[in-house]
């Protein structure tokens, strides 16, 4: 069963969001990394870019699959996890920690309320047949 931390928010495209004041850290969920399996390349979002909810902001390539990274929330990209360029597999081993992908300056903090909480995401996963 995929790990779904209680304190995070989740999108239907399997990104997670951790709100830290006016900022949001984003990454992909344990479920998503498990589905993709061995991640071997990450195209990171551009720092400074203004992104809207649902925008494709990067690409995650696994051995057998490729997936777009969608922004779960709108804002401006403040920082990206450049360690992932050398060690993309960190997303597999630590999706909620060292495998974070980007940090955003929130455009509208109330948007986070529209995302799923852990319980809702777990329920959503159950409907995905897992």
């Amino acid at each position, binding site marked *: 069963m995929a790990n779904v931390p209680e304190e995070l928010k989740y999108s239907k495209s399997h990104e997670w969001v951790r709100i830290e004041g006016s900022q949001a850290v984003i990454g992909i969920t344990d479920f998503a990394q498990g589905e993709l*399996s*061995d991640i*071997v*390349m990450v*195209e990171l979002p551009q720092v400074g870019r203004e992104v809207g909810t649902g925008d494709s902001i990067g*690409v995650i*390539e*696994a*051995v*057998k699959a*490729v997936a777009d990274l969608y922004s779960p929330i709108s804002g401006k990209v403040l920082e990206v996890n450049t360690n992932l360029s050398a060690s993309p597999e960190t997303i*597999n081993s630590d999706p909620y920690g060292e495998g974070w992908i980007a940090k955003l300056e929130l455009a509208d903090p109330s948007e986070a309320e529209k995302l799923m909480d852990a319980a809702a995401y777990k329920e959503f996963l159950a409907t995905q047949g897992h």
Partner: protein
Amino acid sequence: MDKKTPFYDKIVEAGGRMVSFAGYQMPVQFEGLIAEHTKVRSSVGVFDVSHMGRVEVKGSQALDFLNYLVTNDVSGLELYQALYTPMCYPSGGIVDDLLIYRLPDHYFVVINAANNEKDQKWMREQAKGFDVEIIDRTDAMAQLAVQGPKAEQVLQRLTSDDLASIGFYRGLETELAGVKMFVSRTGYTGEDGFELYFPAQQAHTVWDKLFEAGADEGIAPIGLGARDTLRLEMKYALYGNDIDKTTNPVEAGLSWVVKFEKEDFIARDALLKVKEEKPSRRLVCLEVQGSGIPRPHDVIVGDGEELGQVTSGTFSPSLRKGIALGYVRRGYTKSGTELLIRTHRGEVPAVIVKPPFYKEASHK
């Protein structure tokens, strides 16, 4: 409703992540695709390939029939020797690619899982007029592939017959793990290794003894994911991706298993025509320069024109870069030709290389 192979319980117990494949519940991976791939390249791994089709062909005209059915020459097969061959439609399109073994009182044919029903039907239709019997042994038999440089060392602990005496593409009837079986030095990984054919009822016994015997070598079960990256690094064609009824053996680079000098066979005229006129396209090996991973159906571009499509593409765990097979229009198929592949992330440069992609494999 998917079928289960006789190893299903053992595979689930070993942590296999199951997917539906060719009508069976099969493991796509266990520990992780790269770890499993590396295990086979460096030590030894076990693949359940019981989902593949298995038939016996016997009767006084078994040889004549098979030689008519397939493009390779079956007549030269020695006892316990194996042969790789395409089986074609009269048009030259490929029905399937097969392994044919010559055993004492019959020929034994191994079929791609997804094609089993189709192939058997095709074989039975073509068999009319020949004194042959085609017996489906798929459900009665289990099949394991034990692959990797340490495969012989591990399997030798389970039998008193000398496995080192088995040449590549040769086999032996033996008792292994206390079970009477046919063992051949064949596989789909490029590594030294064996395939074991034995009664399905003995599946759990053989599985348990095999994993016990290989514990020191870290023997591990391997899923379909790594099977695909291993075979692609060797440029082994995969039916449904790289070859199918719309492709022929000549353009797929399989002319070495089309024997025009033997007597008449299905597709002889069509393939001879393709060979004489030269195929309009060829299956080539492409290695990506820099980052980017090609995927099936990505378009291959040269001189600003679309030259063809990727049929298999992946990240190569051994080479740590993107590799692909794809058909490319005549005139652009020489090694060293620089092309572009239109991937999900945009166009990436790639170069045509000579097969195999991975040159350090252990099979001799």
